Structures are given as structure tokens and as C-alpha cells.
């Protein structure tokens, strides 16, 4: 049938032309119009991860509303790194090799981040850390600048600084104001705590604390009664905790139910959650937790950020959110200053960052680690009080309320 054959050929030719012109059309798009892709490796199943993503989204939306940077819009894609190094490494590979992102923002578990570092370096992609605290991460920058210059930590303040923040708290508040010299240190046996505790113990002893007990427990522990009993019998008057991955909820509940006569506080990441108090039936009352920011005008950006975040999510942001939000802008500003997206040039500009962030001013030291100090990112010690209200107790200049004792210890 010659006629239908001819028609078939014509049709296919036509289709081919259309397809061809379509393809030509797409390749005509220059590289400039391609959006900047941000890869977010984080623990999507945890609050820390979800808040990181929400914050990145907020920042990306704001930047795109203003037309993007150097004519390019931003977009982001996430990959679940869980809390397991193997999954973390494959998340980095997925983002760099498959999704071909231009930038990485994320992180939570120090052990996972450390495992990811060689793979990030091999991919020559800038990495802005927002969740992992181990100093080992940025030590790499100093030890091997050429290979690891891509790594920056926007937050949190590294474990060594955190230890010093805690020492200040112990020295000025626990010993200074409460008059408690006998301290117990209790923490989860994770990398960042292992890095932190020696500095903390030494510092605490130097400011006059009598360290009655130091114990690191398995992160999986769900029954703290032996531990709490030990703290009680050690004669400690205040329990300093260092918790992030561990079951803070259960810890607080068991402490409350057994009416342990020792108030506690310290670093408790889960206690940073806005709904921590409510979800354990108020049993964390009188616990003091370190926070990097609360809804108060620490900088001009703090309150607007908190309010905007609440609109995007059902809860108040945790610490990784502050830093993830700042990280996007820090990168955008560095690119603007460098006038290009070239990795080497951007790194040079990133090192010169001086950015007013949500929790304080962000600057980096020679190891690409966020600095702490007056005006910069610092710890605030916040206490859970009646009805789930939170009051800043320390530093004194930022105090918003009076310290309360656990209900069973009131005279």
C-alpha cells in the first residue's frame, strides 16, 4: 500500500522534526538559566532533619522572590542520611553524582558527617554543616586544606566551644548563684560527647566544681533508673546532661517519676523542641536546656524568622534550622561578592563571611568553623517552667525569668 506507507513516512518525518526542534530548543538554554541546586543530606525522619529542610525552603523562596543570584534561581533536593554512616555516604553520592548539586547544606550526626567527608572532598562540592558538632570535622580543614577546603561549619558551635559554654554556666550560675559545688556529668556515648566531656570535666574542676560522677551511657538506653540512682547516691547537687540522640523524653519522665532530688540541665537537643514539655506531660519542668536562640530579639532576624517558620511548620524551629537558613544566604552572598559560581572563588569569599544570622553574627575561623563570643553565636540556658513557659536563665544579661527548683524540692 504505497499511499499509507508514504503517509507513515511523512508522519514520522514530521514527528522527527518536531522532536528535533524541541531538543534543539532545550539545548539553546544557556548554563546561566540553570537553577542552582542545593543538596540537603539530613536525617529526614527526625525533627532536626525536617526543620533543616523547612528552613532551606524558606531561604530559597526568599532568594527566588528577589530574582535569585546572578540571574539564577535556587532549588533544593534532599537525601536521607539517617544516623548510619553507610546510608550517609550513599546519600552524598546520590546528591553529588546523581543529582549533581552545586552545594551541600545539612548534617546532624557527627559520626555520619565524618564518614561522608572523603566522599564530599572527592566530589569537590562545598559543604555547609548545620547540625554536627564534633571538632574533628573542621580539624580536617586544617590538616589537609587542599582536599578539605570545601567544608564549612555554619553551626552548631563545635563541641569544644560548647564545653566552655557549659563551664561558664556551671561556674557562674550553678556554683556562683545556686551554690552547688557537687556536680554529676551524664551524657550519651556519642562522638561529639566523647570530644566534649574531657574539656568539660577539666574546665569544671578549674572553676571549683567537685565532680562526683561522670558517666557516658549507651545512646539506646531506655531505662535510666540505675543511672539516676547512681547520681543520687553520689551526692551530686546538680546533674549536667549532654544529650542529643538519646531518649531525652524518657530520661525526663523517669527523672520526674522517681522524683530524683537532683535538678538537671545542660545540653539536651530534644529539649530544644518547642513541644518537648507538652509531649511528656510536663515532666521536664525545671530542666535547663542550652539553646542557640529563642523567640527573642537576639538579632534583627531572630523574631521574624521564628514567626515565619511557625507559618511553614507546626512547631518552633530547632537549632539546625537557624543555621540552615543562614547557610543559604551566606552562600548567596559569597557568590555575589565573588561575582561567579566558581567553587574556588566562592570558597575564598565564604572565608570572609560576616553575616547577621538568626542566632548571632556568623564568622568563620581559619578552620572554617563558626566562631563564638559576644555578638556571635552563643549558648543561652533556658529553663522549662510552669505551663511549658520557657525563661532564659543564663547569661544574666539575657535573663527573662527566675530560676525554679523541681516541684518536689521546693521548701
Amino acid at each position, binding site marked *: 500500500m504505497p499511499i499509507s506507507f508514504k503517509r507513515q513516512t511523512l508522519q514520522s518525518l514530521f514527528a522527527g522534526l518536531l522532536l528535533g526542534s524541541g531538543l534543539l530548543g532545550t539545548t539553546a538554554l544557556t548554563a546561566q538559566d540553570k537553577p542552582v541546586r542545593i543538596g540537603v543530606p539530613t536525617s529526614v*525522619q*527526625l*525533627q532536626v532533619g525536617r526543620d533543616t529542610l523547612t528552613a532551606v525552603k524558606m531561604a530559597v523562596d526568599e532568594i527566588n522572590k528577589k530574582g535569585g543570584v546572578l540571574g539564577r534561581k535556587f532549588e533544593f533536593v534532599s537525601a536521607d542520611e539517617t544516623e548510619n554512616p553507610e546510608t550517609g555516604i550513599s546519600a552524598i553520592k546520590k546528591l553529588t553524582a546523581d543529582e549533581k548539586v552545586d552545594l551541600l547544606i545539612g548534617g546532624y550526626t557527627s559520626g555520619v558527617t565524618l564518614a561522608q567527608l572523603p566522599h564530599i572532598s572527592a566530589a569537590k562540592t562545598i559543604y555547609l554543616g548545620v547540625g554536627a558538632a564534633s571538632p574533628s570535622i573542621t580539624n580536617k580543614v586544617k590538616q589537609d586544606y587542599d582536599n578539605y577546603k570545601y567544608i564549612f561549619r555554619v553551626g552548631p558551635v563545635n563541641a569544644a566551644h560548647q564545653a566552655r559554654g557549659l563551664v561558664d554556666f556551671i561556674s557562674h550560675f550553678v556554683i556562683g548563684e545556686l551554690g552547688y559545688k557537687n556536680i554529676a556529668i551524664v551524657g550519651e*556515648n556519642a562522638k561529639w560527647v566523647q570530644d566534649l566531656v574531657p574539656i568539660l570535666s577539666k574546665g569544671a574542676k578549674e572553676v571549683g566544681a567537685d565532680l562526683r560522677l561522670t*558517666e557516658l*551511657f*549507651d545512646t*539506646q*538506653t*531506655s*531505662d535510666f*533508673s*540505675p*543511672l539516676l*540512682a*547512681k547520681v543520687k547516691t553520689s551526692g551530686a547537687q546538680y546533674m549536667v546532661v549532654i544529650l542529643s540522640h538519646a*531518649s531525652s*523524653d*524518657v530520661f525526663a*519522665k*523517669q527523672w520526674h*517519676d*522517681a*522524683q*530524683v532530688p537532683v535538678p538537671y540541665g545542660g545540653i539536651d537537643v530534644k529539649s530544644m*523542641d518547642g513541644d518537648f514539655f507538652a*509531649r*511528656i*506531660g510536663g515532666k521536664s519542668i525545671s530542666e535547663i536546656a542550652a539553646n542557640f536562640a529563642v523567640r527573642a530579639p537576639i538579632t534583627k532576624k531572630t523574631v521574624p524568622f521564628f514567626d515565619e517558620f511557625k507559618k511553614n511548620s507546626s512547631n518552633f524551629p530547632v537549632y539546625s534550622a537557624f543555621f540552615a537558613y543562614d547557610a543559604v544566604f551566606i552562600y548567596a552572598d559569597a557568590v555575589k561578592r565573588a561575582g561567579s559560581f566558581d567553587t574556588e572563588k566562592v570558597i575564598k569569599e565564604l572565608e570572609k563571611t560576616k553575616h547577621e544570622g538568626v542566632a548571632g553574627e556568623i564568622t568563620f575561623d581559619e578552620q572554617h568553623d563558626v566562631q563564638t563570643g559576644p555578638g556571635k553565636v552563643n549558648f543561652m540556658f533556658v529553663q522549662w517552667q510552669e505551663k511549658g513557659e520557657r525563661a532564659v536563665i543564663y547569661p544574666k544579661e539575657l535573663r527573662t525569668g527566675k530560676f525554679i527548683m523541681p516541684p518536689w524540692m521546693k521548701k
Partner: protein
Amino acid sequence: MEILIYGAVTSAIYAMLAVGFTLIFGVARILNLAHGSFYALGAYSAYVLTTLAGLPLWLAALLSIAIVAVFGVLVEKILIRPLRSSQLGVLMISLATAFVVEQALFLIFGSEYRNVPAFIDTKFNLFGVDVAGQRLLTLAVATVAIGSLYAFIQFTRLGSAILAISQDPLAAKYMGIPSDRIFSLVMAISAGLAALAGVMAGPFLSVQPSMHLLPIVKAFAIVVVGGLGSIPGSIAAAFMLGYAETIVAYLVSGSWTEIVSVLSTLLMLVFRPAGLFGKRAAF
């Protein structure tokens, strides 16, 4: 002194889990790795019924146990029974079920810990030891539950039927005992007991999607040490393990407790595979 009391509470929870596990194995030769999921589901239903449906705690608890028992029966009927010819098959599918439950819980409730309210919120002081009321209640409830179960099996007709099937399934069938129905009943009891443990322990232990894993590993270990299929064996082993863990935790450090239970399992397997009271060696 603390060791005595806390050890008893821990052992009681382990006993509730182990007895259910050994029961279904003794009767139906099913190594049900989803047993931990029953524990988890018990705690979560209590959470849902009290928090979201606003039911009073005692009602939520009873309903939770019933719901999980039904779930257990369904799992056995639909997923496990068809694969009964292969022990590994049963193992794997019960494991896969446990994963599905964990993921479902995670997707619905998120990874954060949930709060199951306690029956008794006050603190007691027993012999100079501060104990949370809920823990003592758990101990009491466990004793009653296991005691009644034992009595049920020893002294009722149905109980004898269960014993018969566990000793000789074929002969039991010849005697006209409906084995399939008995399997379902035993599964319901097993799941219900695990759910009870979840409801009682939920208030003071962690309630999060992966809470099924550790209990099942411990239950498995206890049951092997006590002798697969023997209820008194499981109870004895549960207490041994519970106390061993508590002693190690108090005197040495929390990190070593895991090893205690696992090591004792290993040693028992090497030296006396039948367990303490087991009737058959290495099955």
C-alpha cells in the same frame, strides 16, 4: 535494695514478653519475630486511645490489648500459616511484618517519642527506695497475668488442649482437637500478653517506632535459655536475665547490660542447648 526492686520490674516485663513468645513456639512451632511489634502496638494504641480518642486509661488499656490480640490472630492466619512448612520462611515473613509495622508507626506518628499516660503517677518509697508507682503496678499486673495464664493452662480443658497440641500435634488432631482454632487462640493470648506489657511499660520506657527490636531480641534469648516451649523455663530465665542486667547496670555500667543477656544466651546454647527446662535438645 534498688537492685531487688528494679530488677523485679524489669524481669516482670521480660517475663510477659517471653511467655507469649514461648507459648506460640511451643504450640505451633512458630518463631514469631513480630512479637515485639505486638508490644509496640500495645503501647501505641494506648497512646492513641487516650490522647486522640480521649478514653479513660483503663478502657484504653483493655481495648489496646483486644485490638493487638486480633491483629496477632490475623497475622498468623494470613501471613504465617501458609508458610508453615518452612521455619525460615515463617521467621522471615514475621520479620518483614515487624518492619512494616515499624515503618507504619513511623509514618503515622513520626520518630519522636510518644507519651503513654501512667495508671499511677505518684512515687512510692519501698524499703528506702524511690520507685515510680507505675513500675510497681507493672510488677503486680505481670504476676497476676502470668499466674492466671499458667492456671488456665494447667486447670482448664482448653488449657489441656493447648498442652496436648504442644506435645504431639498429630495425636491431638486424632483426638479431635481443632488445632487451627487453638493456634489462633494461643496467638491471641501471646499477642495480648505482649500488648499488656506495652501498655504497662509504655509510660516509663520509650515509645517510638523501633521499640519492638530490643524486646524481641531479649525475648528470644530468654526463651532459648529457659527452654523453648516451657513456660516455667521462660519465667525463670526472664528473672535471671532481668536481675543479671540490673545488677550489671548498677554495679558496673549501663553499657555492659546488653552483653550480659546475649552472652548468657550464647553460653547456655553452647553448654546446654535445651535450656533450663527444655524438653527437647536443639529441637
